[in-house]
């Protein structure tokens, strides 16, 4: 299961011609591929871009989603069910079906030279997350909310003081999945981001790797993949228990 990763790491330390030799371990440790990638592409900037695209928007978007899910689950407002169905229709439209007009929209607004196309849509929440959080909140008894109402709380106070605590595990579980998805995103940035300095690290490394695929410089390509994977693997290594539990938790509720 992990063999491809192990192969990647050892290959990245081989000199170019040694990849045809048998054996997993390098016969001579060669760090030139790493020197090459660090000097050739602005990796630090790429990582900062990726963090910018996947942390603040997902945090804000998760909060917005939770608020909407709370309204759909617990506030009896007129037209609640029909509005919810309309919102759900958004899930049924796949990204490739709308990416051309989205690109036109962003480029008409002069946003494709900057980071906004990968930030703005996430800020308005995630319909799938609203769907699951609403289901989860149906398990929260109404009596808790009524009690808070009698204490004089308005709905925002109820959300902040009562609901947010109760839904933290579900919110975290779906937030993590969303975060991983946007961390690894590739198609949207290749379309929406026309300024190289704003590319996320996935696109930068892909470009680097494609360039060396032509003359099959395998160690360089693997060094690129290592740079892309190591931060994620470290984060995963630290939080693995919590991530797996969250995923198990979210799949039970589905």
């Amino acid at each position, binding site marked *: *299961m992990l063999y*491809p*990763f192990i*192969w*990647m790491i050892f290959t990245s330390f081989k000199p170019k011609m040694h990849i045809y030799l048998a054996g997993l371990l390098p016969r001579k440790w060669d760090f030139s591929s790493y020197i090459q990638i660090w000097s050739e592409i602005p990796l630090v900037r790429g990582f900062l871009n990726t963090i910018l695209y996947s942390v603040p928007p997902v945090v804000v978007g998760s909060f*917005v*989603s939770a608020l*909407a899910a*709370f309204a*759909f689950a617990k*506030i009896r*407002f*007129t037209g609640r069910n029909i509005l919810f169905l309309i*919102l759900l229709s*958004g899930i*049924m*439209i*796949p990204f*490739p*079906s*709308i990416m*051309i*007009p*989205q690109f*036109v*929209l962003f480029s008409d607004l002069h946003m494709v030279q900057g980071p906004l196309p990968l930030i*703005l849509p996430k800020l*308005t929440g995630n319909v799938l997350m*609203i769907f699951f959080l609403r289901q989860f909140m149906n398990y929260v008894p109404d009596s808790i909310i009524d009690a808070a109402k009698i204490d004089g709380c*308005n*709905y*925002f106070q109820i*959300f902040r003081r009562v609901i947010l605590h109760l839904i933290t595990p579900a919110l975290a579980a779906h937030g993590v999945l969303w975060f*991983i998805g946007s*961390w*690894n995103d*590739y*198609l949207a940035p290749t*379309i929406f981001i026309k300024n190289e300095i704003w590319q996320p690290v*996935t696109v930068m*490394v892909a470009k680097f*790797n*494609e360039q060396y*695929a032509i003359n*099959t410089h*395998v160690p360089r*390509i*693997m060094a*690129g993949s290592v740079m*892309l*994977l190591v931060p994620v*693997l470290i984060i*995963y290594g630290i939080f693995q*228990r919590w991530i*797996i539990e969250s*995923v*198990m938790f979210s*799949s*039970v509720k*589905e």
Partner: protein
Amino acid sequence: MKSKAAKKMSFRVSDNIWGYAFVLIPFIGLIVFVLIPFCMSVYASFTAWPLGQRITSAKWVGLKNYISLFTNPLFRKSLGNTLFYMIGIPIGIVLSVIYAALMNRGAKYEKVFRVLYYTPVITSVVAVSFIFQRMFMSDGGTINTFLMSLGIKNPPNWMSHPGYTKWVIIIMAVWKGLGSSIIMYIAGMQGISSTYYEAAKIDGAGWFYTFRKITLPLLMPVTFYLLVTGIIGGAQMYVEPRLIFTGNGPANSTFTTVIHLYDNTFRNSKAGYGSAVAIVLGIIVFLVTALQFYINGRGDRVEKAKENR
């Protein structure tokens, strides 16, 4: 009495205000980023629209894009490739049920296995695509080196023979998705009440019989969910074939409908034609999703009927 009614009234009004306020932002998102673009896609699919020009100045051509789409052998090939990749879905489902069943029987280090199998799920598809591209290359690739060491004289030319190229992507997709399905199945298995198993034990049922008659049917919702999300995701396959193979792949064997859409729109600037592809793709995904909601809803109604009985 009167004041109570008035109070109820004011609660109703404030309920509305709070409710609309809380759902406002997602609705703005839906309208601006999904519904308006979708309507534009539908409109654009009936026009000859060179990307870069205003859509309002694009010429109306009726069904021409759709006709040229379905008569275009490249489009049909891309749709065929996209469907072919979905062979990976049942393979992944069968493998993950087996693994989940083994792991759920209290295998030693079960939690460690979960973490290991889930690792490919969280890693970047970009990085992984390049790893598989190089592991499957004909000379020096670790897969063929291994096959030759098993005594296979002429291992397949994975990267250049059109009969094998798709399997590189299928193998990678199954490998990458396995951990996620395993976790879902384990979660599903742990949700099955132990009374079923105790009853089966009393009746003298063997492990495999119990698995086939109790576990598998009760896991149907998970299987169905994986099947539907697999089809929806598979229909949108883009990154893997784009990065592992160059262009459309050897003899057009690897490119997908989304690659066809992307290249026509963003490289050849035929946004009208690209929009028609986008709409056809959207209809396919819509039908699969609607089917899921329909069957899910039916399941809920059946359960409600049972509760009411």
